[in-house]
């Protein structure tokens, strides 16, 4: 559909995208790669956005009609109720509608100006809604630290009983102290091993274990197949085990047998506690728990 957009505006936007995503990281990118990047841009969506920026009402109507459901759906995902979702969607449209070209200088003054056309307009709108939802959540919600500390913290703070790692008063304080220190050592080794992973491996671990995604979903975020993600995770496990054992044996002075026994006990304890967590808090989703844990971290 023809849009009343000047060629210069389109060229400027495309150049901006090219510089942002390709030339900034690879200034010497060859011409074929540049051409490939430009061909992959979503030209129709870009023209629609440019037309909206320049005040074309028809383009705006097309935008509303074509993406109203997308925005509302994204708002529902970022909200706890229908009313909140509709309010969030209206906020998004208000922000987008307000971003018209300023009459003074004709420069865009809104979020639409930041759409590069690299991704689809629908995806961009979902990201806009998600970000607004997170911001709103931070401002409105008051996260209360749940009784559940991180499992490793609880593991470290718990007092061992005669049966193992149980949050009870141990008859032997010295033993309890040593076991607590062992738990902390394991937690620390584990954290360090995760941090030492490659970015993609670390992202995979975060997506799968922290965000609670399924392996298929985590692979989709990474842009790989589920089987590829599974093989990668298996490899990551091996790497992490080696690093954890190396840290525990070299820095903590444990023997191999002690390391193996400690890891086994810790894993068994976490399994038991995880089951009890699930039964005690049936309505809390993994993301919710993650959010609760996240709330304890100070804002940056």
């Amino acid at each position, binding site marked *: 559909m023809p849009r009343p957009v000047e060629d210069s505006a389109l060229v400027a936007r495309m150049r901006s995208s090219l510089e*942002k*995503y390709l030339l900034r*990281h*690879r200034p010497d*990118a060859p011409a074929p790669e540049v051409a490939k990047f430009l061909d*992959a841009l979503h030209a129709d969506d870009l023209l629609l956005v440019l037309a909206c920026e320049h005040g074309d009402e028809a383009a705006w109507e097309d935008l509303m009609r074509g993406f109203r459901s997308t925005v509302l*759906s*994204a708002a529902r*995902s970022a909200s706890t109720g229908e009313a909140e979702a509709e309010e969030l969607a209206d906020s998004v449209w208000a922000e987008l509608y307000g971003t018209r070209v300023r009459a003074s200088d004709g420069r865009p003054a809104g979020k639409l100006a*930041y*759409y*590069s056309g*690299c*991704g*689809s307009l*629908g995806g*961009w709108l*979902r*990201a*806009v809604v*998600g970000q607004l939802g*997170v*911001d709103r959540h931070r401002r409105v919600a008051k996260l209360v630290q749940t009784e559940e500390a*991180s*499992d*490793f913290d609880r*593991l470290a703070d718990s007092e061992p009983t005669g049966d193992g790692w149980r949050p009870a008063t141990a008859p032997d304080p010295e033993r309890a102290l040593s076991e607590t220190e062992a738990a902390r050592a*394991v937690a620390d080794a*584990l*954290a*360090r091993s*995760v*941090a030492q992973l490659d970015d*993609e491996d670390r*992202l995979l671990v*975060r997506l799968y*274990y*922290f*965000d609670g995604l399924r*392996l298929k*979903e985590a692979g*989709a*975020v990474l*842009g790989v197949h589920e089987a590829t993600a*599974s093989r990668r995770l*298996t490899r990551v*496990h*091996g790497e992490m*085990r080696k690093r954890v054992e190396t840290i525990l044996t070299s820095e903590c002075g444990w023997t191999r047998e002690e390391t193996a026994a400690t890891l086994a006990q*810790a*894993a068994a304890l*976490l399994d038991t*506690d*995880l089951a009890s967590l699930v039964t005690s808090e049936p309505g809390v989703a*993994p993301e919710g728990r*993650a959010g609760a844990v*996240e709330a304890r*971290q100070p*804002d*940056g």
Partner: protein
Amino acid sequence: MKQEFDKQLDSLLRGTRGGAGEVRRAAAAEHLSPDELSAYAENALPQAARSLYTAHLADCSDCRRIVTTVVLASGAEVAREARPAGVADVSRAASKSSWGARLAALFSPRVMAYAAPVLAVAIIGAVALVILRGRQGSEAPNVAQRSDEEAARPGSITQPSPSAGTLEAAPAANIDAPAPQTQGSPAAAPGVGTAKTETTTNAPVKVKEMAQDKSNELADADEFKTASPVPKPEVAAAAAAPPPASSQPAEAVPVAPTSTGARAPAREADDREVSRQRRSAADNAREAERGEDARRDAPEPERGRAMNNNNERAERRVYDGKTKSDGNVPSETEGLASARKRQGGPATGGGRGAASETRFVAGHEFRRQGNAWVDVNYRSSMSTVSVRRGSDSFRSLAADIPEVGRAAGQLPGTVVIVARGRAYRIN
């Protein structure tokens, strides 16, 4: 699908939920922009930019959550929009298949390479089927014609006598059956009596005659019981009516009781013929009465079955007769007259005397030979089974072959009947 994960490590990581070591939440300004997040989620970034954003996402739960939401929400739409516009347009155009495209695909060389042989085989098979059916249809009248020719050959055992030609040639209804009115079926009808259906071209005439003959016999029998033996008007009229000139050849339907088969031009000859026919009709009526009594005395199921079977066989014989018909349908009086003449005709089989009779019972034609009624289809070379009336064997035989029971019930004395390729002698 999961490969063999390290269970201990998996449990440890699940317990920590991977949160160990996560950096402090980045400032709002350090977060990725919606454009960057959407481009990352749709895998639309160059590798260098993607690697940079991967590092941030690995440590920023907020941005990671938005990317995850976009990925899960877009799903297939992300995969579709990630393709260049040109490719997407082509795929959309291809998906909108028009009728022309569908037809073109249907008749594409690849499809036709497989469909053409199959189509050719189907066409050849259909043509062959049509040809075969046509041949079968043309063979049916040929078979009938051959049957007629065989019947007309001298010396054939089924060759009817000149006096009884028409009656023998068309085994129609028996004494128990009403006059069937249905038309004939193809030559492949059940073969009861079909061996005897070598007819001349006057088959429909004969069938009609015999049907009417039997019905009138029944009526005559009743009259004999209740009234004076005065023939019914139609019998007399039929007897008096001249045979049709066009439907009956002289050798098949004799008008005069002479072996030559010449017509009696004089009225005196006609009167004599009429009187003789009346006498024979009376005899037949008495015979029919005896047969009726015998039938009434038979067990109920057997009689009922016999009557039903008689009706069925009458219809079949009518069908058999009609299949060889030439379309001529004589009048009832003409047919009756022919039947009366046949019954009054000279005896066959040689040397039996002037009182030889033929009877049509249970779909079979019997010729009297002394004290026995012999099926005209009987051959001395046939294996013969002797059965005594009233015996268990007879009852089982009658149950198996109802026509045997009917013939034995209606014909006195010894009865030799040919059924199912075997001769049965009922004593």
